[in-house]
């Protein structure tokens, strides 16, 4: 089991939730204190460095127009990590390809970060959450096609070494010839994400690592099962290597179960602060009309962050959306989860969220790195080169 320490690096010092409509897209940045924000950035990068020194890998992401994540450019945050860390693999999960205007710039940025890090980069490509549509002014029409076209273009840019080529599709370039090229050859490992079974096959056919987020037991089992089915058909193997599968959950470790649960309660801000106006959360065209009908008729989501909002911390642990407790507790919870979902090889460990402070975050990371991670190594079925 490889563990990637993950935090969205939030700015959680907000006015009362009743005073705003949506934590995404419309919350005025008057609520952001630049001095406090600057201190937060220093602190958060310190935590990434500590996680690296503890032997953990790192994962970072990007969101826009929201205090839930202070990284609107994954290239900037990962570039800093590439220079200030030594050993960790750095997963950027991910570049929201259909939301960005310039895929070649992403190809260039990722090649630079890969090179600065001496090839420690895993590059994630994601569609982007529905609430990112408005901040990016990204049309929902053809959004999945744009994801894959940008993917094709970036892969070609990374792997073409004989001078310029042209690309005239959704994006128009007549002279693609990136410098530098990536450090890892032929290109950095690719990660993608999904929360739906229907979009899993295409990811599995490429053999990419797939990341899924706080889906809990049942949904994650279905997602990983769908990946394995296509992967094994595509590659003619009887088993899918665990390292193709990644799962994100909140993780809080402490010397006592109660102290860890208290940390988890602090971190639940990640779920509970998720107030988003419906027209921002459900932009037209992001899903087909039939899916709008399903949402209207089926009520609140049964898995994922939407389902976790407002639930007790114990519910998160019982449902596999968080692993929290003493090192023994966490090993037991993760071993159970691993068995229930049929195995996975990468834990994206949200080890800091909400107002969880620096000392508690570091203590949790230390306990995890020293007393949990070593005991998870036996969980892996097998590995292929990432």
């Amino acid at each position, binding site marked *: 089991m490889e563990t990637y320490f993950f935090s969205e690096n939030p700015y959680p010092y907000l006015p009362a939730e009743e005073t705003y409509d949506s934590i995404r897209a419309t919350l005025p940045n008057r609520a952001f204190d630049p001095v406090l924000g600057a201190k937060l950035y220093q602190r958060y990068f310190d935590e990434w460095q500590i996680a690296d020194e503890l032997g953990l890998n790192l994962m970072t992401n990007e969101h826009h127009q929201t205090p839930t994540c202070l990284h609107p450019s994954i290239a900037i945050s990962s570039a800093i990590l590439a220079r200030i860390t030594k050993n960790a693999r750095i997963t950027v999960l991910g570049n929201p390809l259909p939301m960005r205007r310039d895929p070649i710039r992403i190809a260039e940025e990722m090649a630079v970060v890969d090179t600065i890090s001496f090839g420690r980069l895993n590059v994630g490509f994601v569609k982007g959450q529905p609430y990112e549509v408005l901040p990016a*002014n990204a049309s929902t029409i053809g959004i999945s096609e744009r994801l894959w076209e940008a993917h094709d273009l970036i892969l070609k840019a990374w792997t073409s070494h004989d001078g310029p080529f042209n690309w005239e599709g959704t994006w128009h370039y007549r002279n693609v010839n990136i410098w530098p090229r990536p450090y890892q050859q032929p290109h950095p490992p690719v990660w993608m994400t999904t929360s739906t079974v229907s979009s899993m096959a295409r990811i599995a056919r490429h053999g990419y690592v797939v990341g899924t987020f706080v889906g809990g037991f049942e949904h994650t089992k279905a997602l990983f099962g769908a990946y394995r089915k296509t992967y094994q058909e595509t590659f003619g193997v009887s088993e899918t290597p665990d390292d193709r599968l990644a799962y994100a959950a909140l993780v809080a470790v402490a010397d006592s179960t109660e102290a860890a649960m208290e940390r988890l309660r602090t971190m639940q801000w990640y779920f509970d602060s998720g107030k988003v106006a419906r*027209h921002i959360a459900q932009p*037209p*065209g992001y899903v087909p*009309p039939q899916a709008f009908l399903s949402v209207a*008729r089926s009520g609140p989501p049964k898995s994922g962050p939407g389902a976790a909002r407002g639930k007790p911390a114990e519910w998160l642990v019982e449902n596999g959306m968080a692993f929290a407790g003493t090192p023994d507790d966490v090993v037991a919870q993760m071993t159970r989860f691993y068995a229930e979902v049929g195995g996975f090889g990468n834990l994206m460990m949200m080890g800091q969220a909400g107002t969880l402070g620096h000392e508690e975050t570091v203590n949790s990371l230390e306990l995890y790195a020293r007393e949990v991670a070593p005991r998870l190594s036996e969980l892996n079925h097998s590995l292929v080169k990432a």
Partner: protein
Amino acid sequence: MTSPVTSRYHVEATGPGVANVLYLHAEHGPRVERPFVDALSRTSVVAVGHHPGFGAHAVDQSAHSALDIAFGYLSYLDELPPGVKVDLVGSSLGGWIALHIATMYGHRIRKLAVIGPIGVKLTPPSERDFIDVFALSGQEVDQLSFADPAKAPFSGTDLRDDDILERAATREALVRYGWEPYLHDTSLRRRLHRINVPTLFVAGSSDRFVREGYYRDFAQLVSDARLCTVDGGHYPVIENPGGVRDALTSFLG
């Protein structure tokens, strides 16, 4: 990625014989505007265009813009008997499409009437001609778009499944044609000078979907245009079909 616009869209006539009015619906789709079409068809044979992606009409992958849709209707006009002209009428999105048609096919149009049209941006970059329907709640959009929000289609909490599906499809279609540039395209404004048929702009007296004065400014860009006002918001075709019919009758004759 692109394929040619060759399809002729579904056009439904309200009576026998050659239609003398081609009507192009707004962004809620054709179904909710039926009372207006019925009112208009008392004095005219109305051909109602159904834009792809609205109602039961499948998305046409070759249509990405109001201009693409306009080309689809050129095929309809080409098939009219030689020498026949129609009165072209459009509401909001349909007005945008109609204006495009009029810049190209004046020889097939007798008169043009646009009711609350969109499609042209007249303000500087940081000002709005239209409310942002994708950045407001459904209730806010209805309140700003209708003099009486209770008349807004697909509103309320007890929608049937078909209504939910149709609302989602129509909103998706509006994203397809109007996301960026938002509810306009830069080419139309440059071509408005080509419109050479008598033109009527019909504005709702309580239209808060557009900025104040928008239609006064818009109508000045068309050489033979005048502006009249009827009761209603941005969609008087839905709220006040009789009032719009009367305004059109006196213009079209």
